[in-house]
């Protein structure tokens, strides 16, 4: 078994909620947002782990913490065997050669005042002393691999479309030949047609360069295509981890089922259905003692409210980790059953000609 490239153990990331001056004087204990609350997983070389969840799930915080853009509150991160949890300064900058990030916002993540060769070349310059001419050459070499023309070197980011800018971000991440790239919502700002192009490109690059991806997104269709394994997060904890085909076709955790049931599919035959999951997504300042999904879960039992379910291995055709007390019982329930079929409305005129 190959050694994991990225190993995350019991990772916690808490953000303090700002106190008012009065509260500080009274020495009231600070409240924290439990953005990531005890997450463990690994990513193997050359594979893609998709991290899906909604807002408040902590997936973006997890991605950033793993890439050491935040300092972890607790826990450990190992990259290619090396512990990077507490690195600072020059040591931290050195590991950037191995792990890079492509950010969500294609407009904001590129400095509008710099040209393409400066932006894309920046990580390389930060790692080694390199002349301007050589930098330009390296950038010119890497641009075609993301589908951009070589002569884009002197252009500005605003001259590119959303898809083009996303490719620039990707090129910037690739220029130091990292082993793993954290993709933070790579498709959110793109149209469906452009998404397809970018996703194809990601897969091709992965095959050619042996890259690993940690892909953070709420776009389940994108994850289906790019990921080998997928992890579902809810309120700072992992709900389910497994092989992408298994998890998306036979979800076990009730939240995964709810999430998949909520996805609108371009299939008009699935219309006139009522989605049954109620409730809002809370923010996590005071985590409940039991399962975090208990308040909204259709399968809840008293044990769920009292006791937090650990992420455990569920026997089956492939390795599946699920954090649910009733995993074995409810595993077979299909997501569609969380949707009530419409009872009495007149069917739409089925324009059959």
């Amino acid at each position, binding site marked *: 078994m190959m050694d994991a490239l990225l190993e995350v153990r019991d990772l916690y990331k808490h953000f303090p909620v700002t106190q008012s001056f009065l509260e500080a004087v009274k020495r009231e204990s600070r409240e924290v947002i439990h953005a990531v609350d005890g997450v463990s997983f690994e990513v193997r070389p050359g594979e893609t782990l998709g991290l899906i969840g909604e807002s408040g799930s902590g997936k973006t*915080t997890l991605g950033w913490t793993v890439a050491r853009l935040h300092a972890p509150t607790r826990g450990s991160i190992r990259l290619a065997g090396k512990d990077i949890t507490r690195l600072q300064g020059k040591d931290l900058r050195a590991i950037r050669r191995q792990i*890079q990030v492509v*950010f969500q916002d294609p407009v904001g993540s590129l*400095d509008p005042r710099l040209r393409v060769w400066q932006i894309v070349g920046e990580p390389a*310059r930060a790692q080694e*002393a390199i002349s301007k001419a050589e930098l330009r050459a390296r950038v010119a070499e890497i641009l075609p691999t993301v589908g951009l023309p070589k002569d884009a070197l002197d252009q500005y980011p*605003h001259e590119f479309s959303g898809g083009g800018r996303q490719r620039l971000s990707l090129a910037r991440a690739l220029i130091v030949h990292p082993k793993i790239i954290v993709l933070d*919502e790579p498709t959110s700002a793109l149209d469906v047609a452009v998404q397809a192009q970018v996703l194809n490109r990601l897969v091709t690059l992965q095959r050619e360069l042996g890259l690993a991806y940690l892909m953070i997104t*709420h776009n389940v269709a994108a994850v289906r295509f790019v990921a080998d394994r997928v992890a579902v997060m809810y309120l700072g904890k992992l709900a389910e981890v497994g092989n992408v085909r298994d998890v998306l076709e036979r979800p076990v955790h009730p939240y995964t089922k709810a999430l998949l049931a909520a996805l609108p599919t371009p299939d008009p035959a699935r219309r006139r259905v009522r989605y049954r999951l109620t409730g809002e997504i809370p923010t996590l300042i005071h985590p409940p003692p039991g399962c975090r999904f208990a308040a909204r879960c259709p399968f809840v039992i008293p044990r769920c409210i009292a006791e937090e379910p650990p992420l455990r291995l569920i026997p089956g055709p492939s390795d599946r980790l699920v954090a649910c007390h009733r995993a074995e019982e409810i595993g077979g329930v299909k997501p569609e059953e969380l949707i009530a079929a419409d009872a009495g409305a007149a069917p739409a005129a089925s324009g059959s000609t």
Partner: protein
Amino acid sequence: MKSAGVRVARTSTVGSAVATIRYGLHRARSTSLNLIKVLRANPLTLIGFIVVLFISVTAFLVVVVPPVSQALLGRAISIAPYDPNALLPCPVVGNSTVCAQPPSAEHFFGTDRSGRDVFSRVLVALPLDLAIGFSVAGFSLLFGGGLGLIGGFWDKPWTIGGVVSLTIMRITDVFLAFPSLVLALAIAATLGRGTIPCVLAILLTWWPYYVRLTRGEVLAVKHQPYVVASRSAGVSEGRILFRHVLRNILEPLVVYFTMDVGTVLVVFSTISFIGIGVPPEVPEWGNMVSAYGDYLLLFPWMVVFPGLAIFVTVLAFSLLGDGLRDILDPRSRRALTQAAIPATSVASSAVRSEA
């Protein structure tokens, strides 16, 4: 451009110098093309640009021509038709000697009550006023801007940087609490009359505005995704400061600076007008307006022309500063117009992912 010069370890110095120059020329060319485009589109900016250019060239000539001509030709030639301080013979009209002459062919702006040529005085005052405007604004930009940079960039609470930043900002607040004119007057009155004390007074009240401005800009840029992206690329904090932060805040600062030159000028003239500041005989626009303010109705030319000079200069700088934003950054125009178009932004659905 400076990045091209900084990190050149391996190639020859000459080669990199050539590359730098070529890059610099390319940048200059694109900026000037932009300049022409903006000037053509904005008649007001064009006016401002031309007037500022004219004023600057004139000031330059007034200062430079006498010593250069002295050195080259052996005698000093001055741009001004008359010596600004010379008391010219006053013509006698009837029984009285009337020194104050209205504008004429010999004296474009007329003469004042002592017989001095107003045009020459206005002209000679130009470099003085301009220099004061630039130096006060410039020094404030450097000093105040530097403080603002520190105050904005290293401001995490409960760190050394945070404490320093806090101190800087609170001191700045103290200075900001005073109306600048009043404070300047108070300081000038204490220090006594004279150009230098006056300039010092204004300076002391001027730099805080730059601190505030710079800090605000730095804070805005600091949290931009591209700064985070650079950090994730392994760029050190210092480089981030110089490469990304400085570059992106420069533009609003330059615009503000340009317009500020005019403002300093007004304040300086006001202080001179009130009577503190430049000694009465030194030609300075505010001085001149003050000295002959009472004669506005009798001999208007002695007051109107210096006043007009102030007005035109300040207006020109303001117009230029306004248009400077467009010259330096062509994208800002597109951004302004795009805002008017309702478009469902696919990007905003990306805002969903917060935690």
